[in-house]
């Protein structure tokens, strides 16, 4: 007879929905993974990315054993070795590097390939901080957005996406939830049934934009001008909430003065949308009272992305939307979680003065362009939870760095990604059904326990076990480095926090998840109806108190390290910073490269994850770019043809789709395709640049110009 049981889990992906899952196990194998039908958001369904999550665990291409490189870097020529051999190889190389150059010659590279508190972003921090390596600044996503959000409101989780059901006007700004936050949509439809308007602001007519009542498609990177113009209209027409602003906001006079510069006519020219539409949206937003804004991750990916978020975040406070359930804004609910980031990273173990390398500069750091590598070169790279050759900007530079024969590279992975092909040692990582973790979310207020359903495949290990093994290998003795997973769960969560009322491990083991205590149920929740924002002034800060050091990265994204913030002062009043590259701001460059390129998330992939799964590949189709008919005609292109997209940094190939889903002068491409899936064997990030934006050292991924021609 078959042995059958179920166990509660949670989705590991870097997506705001963090679904409650149920692993169905049959004879020691995960037979099926389903969404928990009893969960308030998951409601029994996963998504186009995760529906075959059980099969993903048993993908025949999965890495199951440690391997060492036996051929040329990048050639995929590896031989199986034992864990002992792999660890002693790492030890030998690192000891020799440390002896000659110091531990700062080692660079860890991680991101959110797993979102878990134990196995996610910070899972290697304690080990690398104890080893005294270079500190990695991990700002791939939401760093500038977080910095800007907190300058306005402080570290608040903001509006509950479940409260969208009670909104009267919903603005999705640079966000396409029907591909990237699908579980919030029933709440949106509920609001629409009660008469709410849905507004989407996005240069692309995305799945979400197609469902909107109003879709504005501004030129990429002009969101701040649009938001300031909306503020202008709201103030000039007397549509703001004078009482809320007077009591709970600071800097109204300054904001008014700044916004006065952005008349709808002027913003119309900057943004490429009509003044009438700007006025229409401003009025709709102001008059609806319970108005909500969901800020998308795309907003920060431009020269002035931080200031754009500053401007947008002023809007709900200006109209007093926070007074109503369903009113306000949400950037990341994550800031409400009682996580002990300091314990997760142990930033105090870092020696003051240790070098920081921003990971968006991976190529620049490895090729010696930046970071004093003439004094301390980077001689070893340790990659986990990430696939930088696909997802880091300026791909050619990254590849050049990875090709270095004198670079000792270790990659912990599920699959032989393009990055892993450049490794000297490959280590096999376990998947979510094979490990324990406690999960937070950045799109709801549930805390979830992911319990191990089965033993790891082959010789795979969780990140927690990986770093315990490495700690032992490197002769470390700090007891914290050897804590068990259950001990880590106990240490990383502030179980005594007010938000954890009534929640303990027993509850989570039984039910799998629990809603944090964050100020009432979604139908009545309005925790900022009387201000109480955790900013220096206690108010919503239209003028940012923290502007002098405004351009900084939150310590959680830099292993808890507080030294060497590369940033500088910012304009304390929200302002418009034009794109680095655009027809308007760099007309000379635009003669050569006249098209702006926006790159966004694919519907069926999670960044580069799942792009190697047959089902997801079939769903997503081949790499395409979307181009407007006017731009296609100028180039004599027909839909379905192969085109080359290029600029001075590089090029990639794609199939062209001609459609009015994109505004003229802009092309759109999904990221995540592996190079091997593309004719040119290069990806979208071959043309992106490693420039940082105005806040939080975010990447200016969608602030680039390109040219397109027939192949």
């Amino acid at each position, binding site marked *: 007879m078959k042995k059958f049981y179920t166990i509660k889990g949670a989705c590991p992906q870097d997506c705001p929905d963090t679904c409650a899952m149920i692993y169905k196990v049959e004879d020691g194998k995960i037979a099926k993974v389903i969404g928990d039908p009893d969960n308030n958001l998951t409601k029994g369904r996963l*998504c*186009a990315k995760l529906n075959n999550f059980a099969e993903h665990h048993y993908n025949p291409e999965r890495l199951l054993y440690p391997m060492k490189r036996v051929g040329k870097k990048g050639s995929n020529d590896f031989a199986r070795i034992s864990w002992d051999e792999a660890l002693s190889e790492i030890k030998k190389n690192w000891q020799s590097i440390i002896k000659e150059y110091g531990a700062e010659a080692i660079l860890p590279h991680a991101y959110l390939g797993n979102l878990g508190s134990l196995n996610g972003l910070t899972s290697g921090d304690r080990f690398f901080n104890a080893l005294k390596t270079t500190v990695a600044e991990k700002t791939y996503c939401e760093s500038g957005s977080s910095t800007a959000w907190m300058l306005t409101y402080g570290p608040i989780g903001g509006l509950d996406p479940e409260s969208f059901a009670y909104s009267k006007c919903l603005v999705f700004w640079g966000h396409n939830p029907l591909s990237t936050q699908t579980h919030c949509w029933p709440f949106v439809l509920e609001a629409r049934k009660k008469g709410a308007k849905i507004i989407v602001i996005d240069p692309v007519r995305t799945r979400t934009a197609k469902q909107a009542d109003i879709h504005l498609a501004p030129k990429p990177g002009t969101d701040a001008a649009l938001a300031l113009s909306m503020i202008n209209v709201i103030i000039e027409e007397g549509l703001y909430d004078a009482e809320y602003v007077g009591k709970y906001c600071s800097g109204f006079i300054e904001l008014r003065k700044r916004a006065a510069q952005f008349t709808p006519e002027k913003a119309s020219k900057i943004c490429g949308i009509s003044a009438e539409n700007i006025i229409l949206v401003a009025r709709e937003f102001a008059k609806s009272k319970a108005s909500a804004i969901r800020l998308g991750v795309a907003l920060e990916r431009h020269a002035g992305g931080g200031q754009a978020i500053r401007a947008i975040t002023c809007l709900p406070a200006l109209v007093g939307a926070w007074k109503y359930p369903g009113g306000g804004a949400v950037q990341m609910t994550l800031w409400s979680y009682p996580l002990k980031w300091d314990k997760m990273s142990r930033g105090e173990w870092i020696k003051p003065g240790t070098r920081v390398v921003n990971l968006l500069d991976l190529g620049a750091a490895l090729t010696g362009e930046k970071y004093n590598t003439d004094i301390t070169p980077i001689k070893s790279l340790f990659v986990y939870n990430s696939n930088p050759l696909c997802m880091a900007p300026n791909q050619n530079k990254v590849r050049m760095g990875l090709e270095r024969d004198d670079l000792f590279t270790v990659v912990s992975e599920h699959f032989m990604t393009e990055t892993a092909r450049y490794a000297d040692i490959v280590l096999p990582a376990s998947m979510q059904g094979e490990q324990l973790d406690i999960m937070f979310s950045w799109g709801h207020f549930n805390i979830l326990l992911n319990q191990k359903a089965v033993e790891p495949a082959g010789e795979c290990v969780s990140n927690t076990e990986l770093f315990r093994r490495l700690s032992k290998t490197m002769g470390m003795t700090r007891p914290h480095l050897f804590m068990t997973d259950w001990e880590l769960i106990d240490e990383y969560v502030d179980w005594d926090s007010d938000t954890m009322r009534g929640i303990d491990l027993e509850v989570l083991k039984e039910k799998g998840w629990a809603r944090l205590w964050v100020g009432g149920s979604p139908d009545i929740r309005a925790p900022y109806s009387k201000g109480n924002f955790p900013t220096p002034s206690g108010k919503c800060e239209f003028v940012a108190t923290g502007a002098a050091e405004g351009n900084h990265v939150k310590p959680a994204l830099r292993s808890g390290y507080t030294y060497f913030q590369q940033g500088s002062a910012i304009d304390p009043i929200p302002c418009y910073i034009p794109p680095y590259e655009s027809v308007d701001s760099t007309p000379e460059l635009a003669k050569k490269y006249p098209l702006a390129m926006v790159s966004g998330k694919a519907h069926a992939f999670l960044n580069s994850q799942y792009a190697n799964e047959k089902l997801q590949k079939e769903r997503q189709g081949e790499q395409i770019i979307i181009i407007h008919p006017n731009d296609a005609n100028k180039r004599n292109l027909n839909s379905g043809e192969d085109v080359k997209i290029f600029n001075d940094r590089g090029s990639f190939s794609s199939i062209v789709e001609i459609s009015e889903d994109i505004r003229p002068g802009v092309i759109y491409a999904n990221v995540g395709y592996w190079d091997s899936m593309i004719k040119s064997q290069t990806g979208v990030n071959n043309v992106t640049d490693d420039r940082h934006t105005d806040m939080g050292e975010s990447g200016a991924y969608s602030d680039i110009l390109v040219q397109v021609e027939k192949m």
Partner: protein
Amino acid sequence: MAHIVTNKCQRCRFTHCVEVCPVACFHGDEERLYIDADTCIDCSACIEVCPVRAIYDQYDMPEEYQTCIAINSKALDFPVIDTKHEPLPTAMERKKELGY
């Protein structure tokens, strides 16, 4: 690519699917339901709840139902069905006929 309601829905129309659909992509007439492919997000929630397994992911839909793709493309000719309706009077008989 999207999900497809096959002809198995005819004479059944149980409408369990519309209750779990997060995007209200089901449309219907007196006979059956249709999926609007542009609105469907491929979450697959509807597949398991259908008493006669009438819905398939286009990815692994049996060959015999390929003609249903064209039929579903007419979805927008009919109103959205997003609340559960009574099954058709012939539903139980049809269910049996289909072997469920």
